[in-house]
């Protein structure tokens, strides 16, 4: 029994020593509590599990170390002969069961609340595809894609890495404070997982399924996460950024998006009416290519291996315009080459095709106008 008391005492000492820096270093060494009521509860459950493990660990390892010290041959040359005790077997079966029941209760109640998707104030449909997120606000109809914004040069170590390296996007998901927001999560191609640690929301995006999750965010700010399920080549490059604004600001943002969508429609009509020059198209085309195509086909148009073919000198990029247009707009089935018609404007598609046909080793001198793309839709 002396050893048990000794183990307890040393365990307590370590606990006290450990818990002091623990609070200060929480962000670096421990799960952060996040910002929602639910994420705080989840962190508390984690913390409870951690303490249970630490205390049991200290007790068991304490007894082990004491035994290794006191029951070594030099100190205890004659071993004891006991090898059975039904009583202790029953004790160390029942006591852990009681501890487990105590742990299961808060986990059960929290889980029940996490899975309660009823009575939401608004709904966002999240659709994952390789390797970007698409957000659609079902209540207002606004939708957009969200791509990684970290430049390739930073990834290739040609430029210093920014503060939010790999955790920055072009169009963040904008959400209001203090609303019960329901997420519907699905995917177009492979399985992805939408994870925002500060909300404690992680939901797999599975083709053919629509999963549900929800959150209620009490504070404004920018929150960052990543795709959490291996989804192919650029799995590491699929960040999530959420911009939380006060309700009034959020409403204004929705309105501005609606106006922007209208203006984009008018601009598209104007773009169709205009005849664009080669130089104009090349400039827009290069920007579009770098943002969307260079991920796989590379800036120099040389592609990456067999799976991501080179465009420089390729049959499609130097062959019939209709085939090239078809491949870009409709994609290639069962590969990462996706249909770009729903993602890009007429002008962008016209420009990127013009760019691909007149860059690197490709010198077709073809100019594709937005009206051609419009008619092909």
């Amino acid at each position: 029994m002396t050893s048990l008391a000794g183990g307890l005492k040393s365990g307590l000492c370590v606990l006290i020593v450990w818990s002091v820096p623990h609070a200060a270093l929480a962000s670096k060494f421990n799960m952060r509590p996040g910002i929602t009521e639910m994420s705080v509860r989840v962190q508390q459950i984690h913390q409870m599990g951690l303490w249970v493990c630490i205390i049991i660990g200290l007790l068991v390892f304490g007894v082990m170390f004491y035994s290794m010290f006191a029951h070594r041959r030099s100190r205890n040359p004659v071993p004891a002969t006991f090898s059975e005790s039904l009583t202790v077997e029953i004790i160390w079966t029942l006591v852990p069961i009681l501890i487990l029941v105590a742990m299961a209760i808060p986990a059960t109640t929290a889980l029940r609340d996490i899975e309660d998707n009823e009575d939401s104030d608004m709904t966002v449909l999240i659709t994952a595809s390789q390797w970007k997120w698409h957000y659609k606000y079902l209540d207002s109809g606004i939708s957009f894609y969200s791509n990684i914004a970290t430049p390739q040069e930073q990834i290739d170590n040609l430029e210093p890495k920014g503060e939010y390296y790999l955790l920055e996007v072009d169009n963040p998901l904008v959400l209001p404070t203090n609303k019960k927001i329901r997420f519907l999560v699905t995917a177009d191609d492979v399985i992805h997982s939408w994870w925002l640690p500060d909300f404690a929301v992680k939901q797999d995006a599975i083709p053919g399924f629509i999963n549900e999750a929800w959150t209620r965010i009490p504070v404004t700010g920018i929150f960052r996460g990543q795709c959490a399920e291996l989804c192919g080549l650029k799995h590491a490059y699929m960040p999530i950024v959420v911009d939380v604004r006060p309700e009034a600001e959020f409403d204004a943002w929705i309105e501005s998006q609606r106006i922007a969508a209208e203006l984009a429609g008018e601009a598209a009509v104007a773009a169709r009416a205009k005849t664009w020059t080669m130089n104009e198209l090349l400039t827009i085309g290069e920007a579009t290519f770098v943002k969307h195509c260079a991920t796989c086909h590379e800036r120099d148009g040389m592609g990456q291996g067999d799976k991501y073919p080179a465009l420089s000198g390729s049959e499609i990029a130097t062959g019939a315009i209709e085939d090239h247009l078809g491949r870009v707009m409709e994609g290639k089935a069962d590969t990462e080459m996706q249909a770009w018609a729903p993602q890009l404007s007429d002008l962008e598609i016209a420009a990127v095709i013009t760019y691909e046909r007149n860059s690197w080793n490709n010198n077709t001198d073809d100019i594709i106008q937005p009206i051609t793309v419009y008619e092909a839709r």
Partner: protein
Amino acid sequence: MVAHAQTIHKQRHPLLAFAARWLFTTNHKEIGTLYLWLSFGLFFIAGSMAMLMRLELFEPGIQFIDPIFYNQVLTLHGLLMVFGVVMPAFVGLANWQIPMMIGAPDMALPRMNNFSFWLLPFAFAMLLSTIFMEGGAPNFGWTFYAPLSTTYGPPSTDFFILGVHLMGISSIMGAINIIVTIINMRAPGMTYMKMPLFVWTWLITAFLLIMVMPVLAGVVTMMLTDRHFGTSFFDAAGGGDPVMFQHIFWFFGHPEVYIMILPGFGIASQIIPTFARKKLFGYRSMVYATISIAVLSFVVWGHHMFTTGMPLFAELLIMYLTMLIAVPTGVKVFNWVATMWRGSMTFETPMLFAIGFVMMFTIGGFSGLMLALVPADFQYHDTYFVVAHFHYVLYPGAIFGTMAAVYYWLPKWCGNMYDERLGKIHFWLATIAVNLTFFPMHFTGLAGMPRRIPDYSLQFADFNRMSSMGAWLLGLTQVLFLYIVIKAIRKGAKATDQVWEGAEGLEWTIPSPAPLHTFQTPPIIAEDAVH
């Protein structure tokens, strides 16, 4: 005719004779040796892959290997370590030890034993050859989730499927052989409750194997027909279900993780009593606990899938069942500690590895308990916390268990003692490196770093650097292990038959090195003898 055959035999080139001996051997000890060397070789290949990944992860940004190759190396590392290192190592140990521990002359089905080994080199050659194929090696992780592995998988996926089939056939045959041997070939008087615990844990493992390997074969066959014969088992566009893939895979996968640890439990249960010079505490409860763990392993597969959108009821049920596994696992740990308690311990290398096994496996068990809590699992799932968890149960668990077994039984196998000083250095270096590699992964995971990424944001840099340095040290340390083993095989102090002062069991009654054929007349186990 006889004379003729003999002349042919004499004229054989020595190299041919050597090849024929190992190709056609049906001896359990020689086949055990083959399994162990295959496992050792693949350990270095798969380990080099891990070191390559850690090289890329040393700093944020892409420096050494591009994401395409990273995903391939990641996949092959996992597949090789699971199917090529841990499983063959345990089967090799079973081949060497089970007949000697139960007083049998050989395995029950020696020709099948030969076949089940010789399938493996071809299976792994096929798997490794995918690196050089057009489109590269499989790149979807060792869990090969559909549709990433079906619709979007590279052409080499078919070689992977065939390779998995071969490994599966090999495992099923090996398992049948072990079950038949244990049930039919125990020495007279050796009742089930007198069997050494290593034999018990392998008997249970073998049952797990024959139950789940066909499930794995089923799921890869469904993949094959999805890829080539127009079925849509896992393709949502054709009315299939990608989540069903995960259910089937993990119905195999969860018992599989116990296949990779139960023989390790057996090894620790042999070694700790030997060096504590005291009988194993709670033999019966150890057997019952192992059976309970095996049974529970069939009903907890869903805990790998909490984020797939399971209904609340399923989440709760699987959480409770998963937490329940902590009880028999705890019983095992408590029994080991009670075995040590008031013993008369010495700390030779096998004992050091066995104690390292118990302690660090327990740390992995703790994080496993935390992962069972579904609300917290939403935060841990698919992060480095999970990577830390399963490497703690597999490296200091399965791998340290195997190393403990090798140090423990090597003198019996080759007749020479290994270099004790080097063995201890190996243990301490490996222990430091394992913890340096995998402990920081808990922190990166809790801070929000997803697993299976070749590049990460700046906040994770410090801990990744530590993990990388630990991984390289860990890899290099195993070269020392190879040196120690070869040195012991070539020369060393002669081992006695008993080898270890406190060792008990039939394998210690035969000479060291163990002759090729042992127990051709079965030993008689006295009625009052205990396990």
